[in-house]
Structures are given as C-alpha cells and as structure tokens.
C-alpha cells in the first residue's frame, strides 16, 4: 500500500531539483542575469565602464532628442517597420499562394517544399553576402541576366541607390524566409477536413467564394502565428543588413535598422556614455517587440474566438 502510493505520487522534490538544476543555472547566468542587468544599466549615467549615479530616464531622453540619435533612431525604426510591411505584403502572401498551389499537388509536394525551404537553412549572413555579390553592378549575375533578356533599364545598382537598397533587403529576406509561411500554411490547409470543402462545393460555392468563406477563416490561426513571427523577425533583423550595408547601413544610412544602431552605439561609438544610451535603445526595442507580440497574440485569440464562436 505504501509503495503504491509512493509510485503514483510526486517525484521527490530533491530529485526534481537535481534534474532541473543544470538547465536552471545556465538559464539564470547567461539569459536571466544579463536581461535584468541590461534594464538597470539604462537607468544610470556611465563614464566608460564606470557606473555613475542613478539618472532615471535620462538615457531614454537622450536617445530621442540628442544627435545622432534624434535622426538615426526614427530612420532605423522606420526601416524595421518597412521590413515588416514588405514581408507581410510580399513574402507571406507569396508563401500562402505557394502553399495553396502545393496543396493536393500529389507526389511532388515534398520535393517542392524541400527546394523552397532550402534557403531558410543558409546562414542569413551568407545570404546577405551572396546577394550582395549577385546584385553587384559590376559583374553580378542578376544584372547580367536582366541584360541578357533585354531588360537593360532594370539593370540598376540596386544596393548602391538609397531608394532601392532597403527594398533589396526586403526581397533578400523574403527569398530566404518564404519556406516558413509556406510550411505553416501548408500544415493548416492539410488540417481542413475534406467534408467541409466538399459541402461548400455542393452548396454551389466557386473557388474564390470557397477560399473567402471556408479556407481563409480556417487559416486564421496560422496567419496569426506567421504575422507575429514575421514581426519579431523584422524587428530583430541584423545579419542581412550587416552583410549588405555594413554596420553603418550604407548607402547613407538607407539600410540602417534598430539592431545595427544598437550595435554601433554599444561597440563602435567610442562615446563615454554609450553603455547607458545603448542599453536604453535595447530596452526600448525589447519593450516594443514584446509589447506588440503580446497585444497581437491576445487580439488574435479574440478574433479566433469570434470566428469559431
């Protein structure tokens, strides 16, 4: 009787603690401690690595009002927003389109999925460098191809021109990430019961109507997940802009993003107060990413509830 109760009961707390301890130590030292410390850094004044007095929100005021931040911050932030919008408009809709086309394609589905997902595995830094060579105005293969098929007027210095450079980054990111929305939408489409789809056809719904009334609402949870992850990815964007435009976001700051601005402030600025200001930048970005992700998630849960009743 005694042994039986013991078996069905709890794992002894001592054993449980011993089992979680290695993970807890690693997590606490290398994730939790730096995260909480970064927050405190932003509330102090700094002279090099010497911490001065508590200054409250002064570092935050600095990154909004003083040069170079007063121009660099809105510039970089607008590029992050543009990366997000661009990804939603191009990458995710093409991903959805590919998933719909691939749905019920039969035997070849797996092969196509594999081919479309391959760029996702490649290091984003490699992707950035590879495309900077591909798009080189000198002898880059892209412009050579455009000239070969008679589109000479499109053979532009895409990465050298401030107006096109950020769009080139949208495109490069989309090229790498497309497999992501495609696979998730594909899984969601596969989960829609055959009977629902057939019933709609019997009721006389055509392709477009069926997509609007049946497929789209059932895809809603997947659309939510893809949107949130795209948002986080766009806000954290770093390796591709770094490879394409260097740490200063060349040409002329046209490819600057928040993570680059943070990196420059923390490691390249040489400013004595840089620990305080870069920590303030990091916390602002942190709060923005986390806040929007939480809001998006809750509003999506509400929208789903509305659709499914």
């Amino acid at each position, binding site marked *: 009787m005694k*042994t039986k109760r013991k078996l069905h009961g*709890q*794992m002894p*707390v001592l054993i*449980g603690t011993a*089992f*979680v301890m*290695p*993970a*807890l130590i*690693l*997590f606490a*030292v*290398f*994730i939790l*401690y*730096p*995260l909480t*410390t*970064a927050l405190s*850094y932003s509330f102090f004044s700094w002279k090099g690595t010497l911490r001065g007095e508590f200054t409250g929100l002064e570092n935050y005021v600095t990154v909004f009002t003083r040069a170079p931040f007063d121009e660099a911050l809105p510039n970089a932030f607008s590029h992050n927003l543009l990366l997000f919008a661009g990804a939603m408009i191009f990458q995710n809709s093409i991903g959805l389109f*590919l998933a719909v*086309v*691939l749905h*019920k*394609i*039969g035997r*070849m589905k797996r092969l*196509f*999925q*594999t*081919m*479309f997902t*391959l*760029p996702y*595995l490649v*290091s*984003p*830094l*490699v992707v950035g*460098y*590879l495309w900077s060579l*591909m798009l080189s105005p000198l*002898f880059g*293969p892209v412009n*050579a191809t455009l000239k070969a098929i008679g589109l000479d007027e499109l053979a532009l210095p895409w990465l050298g021109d401030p107006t096109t450079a950020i769009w080139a980054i949208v495109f490069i990111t989309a*090229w790498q990430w*497309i497999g*992501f929305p495609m*696979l*998730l939408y594909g899984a969601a489409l596969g989960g829609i019961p055959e009977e629902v789809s057939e019933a709609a056809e019997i009721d006389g719904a055509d392709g477009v109507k069926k997509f609007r009334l049946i497929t789209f609402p059932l895809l809603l949870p997947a659309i939510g997940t893809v949107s949130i992850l795209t948002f986080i990815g766009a806000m954290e964007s*770093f*390796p591709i802009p*770094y*490879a394409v435009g260097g740490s200063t976001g060349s040409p002329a700051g046209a490819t600057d993003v928040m993570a680059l601005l943070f990196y420059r402030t*923390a490691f390249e600025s040489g400013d004595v107060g840089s620990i305080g200001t*870069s920590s303030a930048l990091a916390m602002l970005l*942190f709060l923005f*990413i*986390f806040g929007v992700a939480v809001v998006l998630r809750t509003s999506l849960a509400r929208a789903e509830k509305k659709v499914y009743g």
Partner: protein
Amino acid sequence: MRRFSILNAPKHVLLWIYALVSLSPLMIMVLNSFRTTQQMARDPLGLPESFNLVSYQKAWITASFETYFFNSMFVTITSVFIGTSVSLLAAYVFARSKRRIFALLEGLFLSGLLLPVFLAILPLFYLFDALGLISNLWGLIAVYSALSIPFSSFILAAFFRQLPIELEEAARIDGAGYFRTFFSILLPLVRPAIATVVVFRFVPIWNDFFYPLMLMRDRASYTLPVGLTRFFGEYQTDWATLFAGLTITTIPLVILFLVASKQLVSGLTAGMSK
C-alpha cells in the same frame, strides 16, 4: 478527379519557376566557387570550365577557414550536446512532477522563446570579461547551450507527457531508481524528439554571427560566420575565394538537410505553433 490533373499542368510550371528562383543563387554560389575571378568578370553567367579547387585552397589555408570551420564544428556540436542534455533532464521533471515550482520554471523557460534575448548582449559582454571568457570558445558554448533550453525543453517535455507512465512505474517496482529509470527506460523512448531537437538547434547555432561578433575578439576563436565578415573586407575583389568561403560555410547544413529533412520540417512547424 481527372479535372485536377489537367489543372495541375500550369501549377507545375509555376512551381518549377519558383524552384529556379529559390535554388539558382545557391547553384551560382557553388558553380562560381570553381571559376576564377577573371572568368566571372568576362562572363558573369558562365559555367565552370574545369573543376578548379584553387579558391578553396586559398579560403581554407590562406584565409584561415580551416580554423573557423573547426571552431564552428566544435562549438555547435558541444553546445547542442550540452543544451539537449540539460533540457532532457529538466523536461522530464516538467512532465512528471506536478509541483507548482516546476510549473513556474517551465513557464520561465518558455518565455525565452518570445523574448529578444540578444538585446542583453552588453551585460553578457561584461560578464564574459569578468570571467575571462572573451575569445574563449567555452563561453560561446555556455551561451548557446542556455539559448537552446527554451525550445528544447518545450519540445522534449511535450514528448515526455505523451509517454505512458506505467513503463516507469514498472521499472520502479523492479527496484530501479529515478536516474536509472530515466537513462535506461526513458531515453531510448524519446529518441525521435531528441533527433528533432538536435537537428533543429544545430542550424541556428551553426549560422549565428551575433554572439561571436561581440564576444570572440581574437581571430583564433572566430567561428565561420564571423570569420566571413573579416574575409569579406579583406578579399573584396577576389570573388572566386569569396564564393568558396560562402560554400564552405553552407555545405554542412546542406548535408544535414539531406540526411534529416524530416526532423527539420517537424521542428519548424513545432517551433512555429508554440
């Protein structure tokens, strides 16, 4: 049903066109690594004239890719091993204990999936400085192991929860302790989940360039991606060597993908529906 197969023809054309968009840059990367820079300048879209390995030799030896490559291998394999091991132990407790404290801890680990933890790099840098871990590969391994915990413990705990508890109880009745039960009964059963976690963590750790860029300041401690940033500054005009360097960095992942595409796809969808 026949209606669909006729409809499928334009679909296939479309899919093959996109396959070309998706794969041609990678093919150009590999093909150009066998050509010389002069050949590329003369004919940007040409094919290799011979199987020329000169640029690989140059990247591997002159540009130190040999060092970077073995650093990357060592760091990635060790981090995946440590990260998976500590996550396995923790996940077992999360799945089998109902104590509130462990549920809280699981929630804490899970939050790491959503938090942009890379923003805490500055305190991490000073922590490394204080511990003498700057330019030390073991420091990088510790960070990557810690970063693996949220995803790995999440996937593994979900898998442990699906296992029937009777097996463990039978082992316990036979007199095996918790450690023994864990190692000889449970570990073999969770092998599929371990495979997913190992394969899926290998990729971002191999590819990461943020942490070594900040924390590895000495050339001898560079991993491949951060080595690439130096290399691209120094070999700017030597396109052939650049393409060879990019290919060397990518090849291990292509091999991984060919061997374990199943695990990668399941990790991808699991990671996304978190």
